[in-house]
């Protein structure tokens, strides 16, 4: 096998056009990525003055987050707990104005409007927290540090059926519980907030994310729009243990924008009657899903893919065209191994070319974008490596698939067309906002283009409503799942090609 691999590698590297093709695919990724980065710019203004754009908040684990809510809190020094009974949630949604100048506001609570009790490291946006809450349509939840979400009881709160919530802090461990009557408590979950200081904020909060509506456009695709909402939760029976006696409640519009006149944009409120609080807030406490991802710099992948397909197809069909395949089979009569060696060589060469490109493009593009005032959602090193190596692997496996198609059809034009129909066309259709979302998702589940899922760096969060469609970079299959679909197609095609080569006279 080593001899075969060496022979096939010698074949690949000694045809200048093929080497040039692979190098070109690499340069296309780098070039288009950097072009995209340098051509992008962002500016923000405060009134008439241009100011640097606010940089998104980062959460305790480095994830970019939205941390915007209304917080009524006291200082907790050491251990303690907070209890509250949520008796109602109501809210309003601002729809597009029907009459210019007249606000079109309807009442309603969005599914992920949330209110309840919270322990937070500080009032700084992005500070660590844990909270137990009642939501608009997803029952009781315990959430912490933006990305973590555990479901409690499925019902919301109302005057007839209020929900008791309790959050207990013991060092850096926070326990969340719920109850129907304030006597029998059910544990929802436990959060560990590493390095939580002794002094933290403890209190009541309310937040209501934008009302995201997806509309179909006339072409068949869809577009999403988000509208301002706010929620008001009524909470009574509020009890806090562990705070200084007679401590005062502090009110914070966490993470709010400030208008040019110095006032908070869409401030929250709280009205207190004895032990009853009506807390009104807007915003969300959740991972940020609306900024740009690292993989957007890899726009050149699609063009590179076409070049790779052509090279991989020619790597085998050129032998059929010239009759060279017979020489190859004379030198290596075990035919299956010949194809496997060819696939391994073209795959490995493509992987190296792709990896060089993605490993350069992603960090350099991010740096250029940052210089142009554009934020890129940070991801863990592991995820970044997965995207960088994954896109290279996507190209490599696509090359194997194309090679197998070349060996099956023995004709360059046919094989290139089929490979493009299998990989490029479904991807373009699914991501170009021309098909209904569900049709796009099925394309990216069933066709080899599912492999593009490997480049998705930001996951879908169940607790964040967003337009999770292929057009916005969200794939229906998980990264490795989608990649596995592509691998399965490549393996199937290679298997058929080996079978055909073995059965037929050369």
């Amino acid at each position, binding site marked *: 096998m080593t001899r075969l691999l060496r022979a096939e590698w010698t074949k690949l590297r*000694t*045809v200048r056009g093929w080497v040039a093709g692979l190098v070109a695919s690499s340069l296309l990724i780098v070039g288009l990525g950097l072009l995209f980065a340098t051509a992008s710019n962002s500016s923000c203004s405060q009134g008439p003055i241009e100011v640097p754009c606010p940089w998104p908040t980062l959460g305790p684990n480095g994830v970019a987050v939205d941390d915007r809510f209304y917080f009524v809190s006291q200082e907790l020094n050491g251990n303690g707990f907070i209890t509250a009974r949520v008796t109602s949630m109501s809210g309003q949604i601002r729809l597009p104005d029907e009459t210019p100048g007249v606000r079109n506001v309807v009442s309603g609570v969005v599914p992920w409007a949330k209110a309840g009790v919270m322990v937070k490291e500080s009032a700084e946006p992005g500070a660590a927290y844990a909270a137990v809450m009642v939501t608009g349509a997803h029952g009781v939840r315990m959430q912490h540090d933006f990305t973590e979400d555990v479901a409690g009881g499925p019902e919301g709160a109302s005057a007839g059926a209020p929900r008791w919530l309790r959050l207990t802090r013991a060092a850096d461990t926070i326990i969340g519980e719920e109850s129907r009557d304030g006597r029998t408590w059910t544990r929802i979950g436990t959060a560990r907030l590493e390095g939580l200081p002794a002094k933290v904020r403890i209190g009541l909060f309310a937040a209501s994310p934008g009302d995201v509506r997806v509309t179909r456009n006339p072409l068949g695709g869809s577009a999403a729009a988000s509208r301002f909402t706010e929620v008001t939760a009524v909470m009574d029976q509020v009890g806090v243990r562990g705070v200084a006696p007679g401590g005062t409640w502090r009110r914070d519009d966490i993470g709010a924008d400030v208008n040019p006149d110095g006032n908070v944009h869409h401030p929250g409120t709280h009205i207190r009657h004895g032990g009853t609080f009506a807390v009104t807030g807007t915003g969300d406490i959740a991972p940020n899903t609306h900024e740009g991802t690292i993989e957007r710099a890899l726009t050149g992948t699609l063009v590179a893919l076409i070049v790779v397909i052509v090279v991989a197809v020619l790597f085998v069909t*050129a032998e059929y065209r*010239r009759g*060279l395949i017979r020489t190859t089979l004379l030198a290596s009569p075990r035919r299956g191994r010949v194809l496997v060696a060819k696939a391994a060589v073209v795959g490995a060469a493509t992987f190296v070319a792709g990896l060089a490109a993605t490993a350069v493009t992603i960090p350099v593009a991010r740096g250029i974008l940052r210089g142009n005032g554009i934020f890129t959602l940070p991801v863990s090193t592991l995820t970044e490596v997965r995207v960088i190596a994954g896109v290279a692997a996507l190209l490599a496996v696509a090359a194997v698939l194309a090679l197998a198609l070349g060996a099956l059809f023995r004709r360059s034009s046919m094989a290139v067309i089929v490979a493009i129909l299998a990989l490029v066309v479904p991807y373009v259709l699914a991501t170009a906002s021309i098909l209904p979302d569900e049709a796009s998702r099925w394309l990216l589940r069933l066709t080899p283009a599912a492999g593009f899922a490997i480049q998705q760096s930001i996951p879908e969060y169940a607790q964040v409503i967003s337009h999770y469609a292929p057009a916005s970079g969200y794939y229906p299959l998980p990264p490795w799942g989608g990649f596995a679909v592509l691998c399965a197609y490549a393996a199937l095609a290679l298997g058929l090609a080996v079978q055909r080569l073995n059965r037929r*006279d*050369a």
Partner: protein
Amino acid sequence: MEATIEVSGLRKRFGGTTALDGMTFSVLPGQVTGFVGPNGAGKSTTMRVVLGLDAPDEGRALVGGRPYRSLRRPLSHVGALLDAAALQPSRTARNHLLWLAHSQGLGARRVDEVLEQVGLATAARRRAGGYSLGMRQRLGIAAALLGDPPVLMLDEPFNGLDPEGIVWIRGFLRSLAAEGRAVLVSSHLMSELQDTAGHLVVVGRGRVVADVGVDELITSASRDRVTLRTGARSAAMSALARAGATVAAGERDALVVSGLPAGEIVRLLGAESVPFSEVSAHRATLEEAYLDLTRDAVEFRGAAR
């Protein structure tokens, strides 16, 4: 005798046409064996079956006692030239041989050796696409020689060569055979093999028509005919007829004698004091012998139908 190529009972049909119809022969080392027959006689198919490219419907073909497809470094067992045009045009000749060498675990040094051997050393780094047909044939032979194999199979190596190239290839093949290799050369023109082949496997319609040494074939085709020139034709005729020969009158002073070797004729005429100016044994050309053979084969098949 060392086993080289053994073909036994090969049958193969392509759709409705029978390509091989019980092809059986073996090739001996130390000589050039001509594999001759008209186009479509099954020469190329046989070679492809021997080389494991085509599968026979029946029968088997062995190289060095083993099926080709079981060989681990096949090019060190058999070197083959099937189609000299089978080249990637943008790859240089040297790189073409280099990947072949790598597939056999051989290095670049061996590549340079065979390039030298076939006289392509100076053109080695040129793209094969720019090669003339003659250069391609040389490159194909270089590829066949890479593994220094004891057996060589060349399919129509003379095709498209200029006279100089034909002379070169003949000499080259003879020298390869003189090194003790078995060399099987197919051709549809017997004349190309004149002075080259020591043995012939003549095929027609997918089977072997004759498997003979070249000398034996020519002798049998000559049929002991002797041309005699004499001024005393009638005396010579009666003397030879008495000795049992068949004598026919040729043009002018010539007689064609068969049934007696030339030496016996000279002795008889001397004893009878019949004057003669020339006694020449007729020697058939390879071409004539071949035409005789294939004519018979066609008649035989015609009768069998």
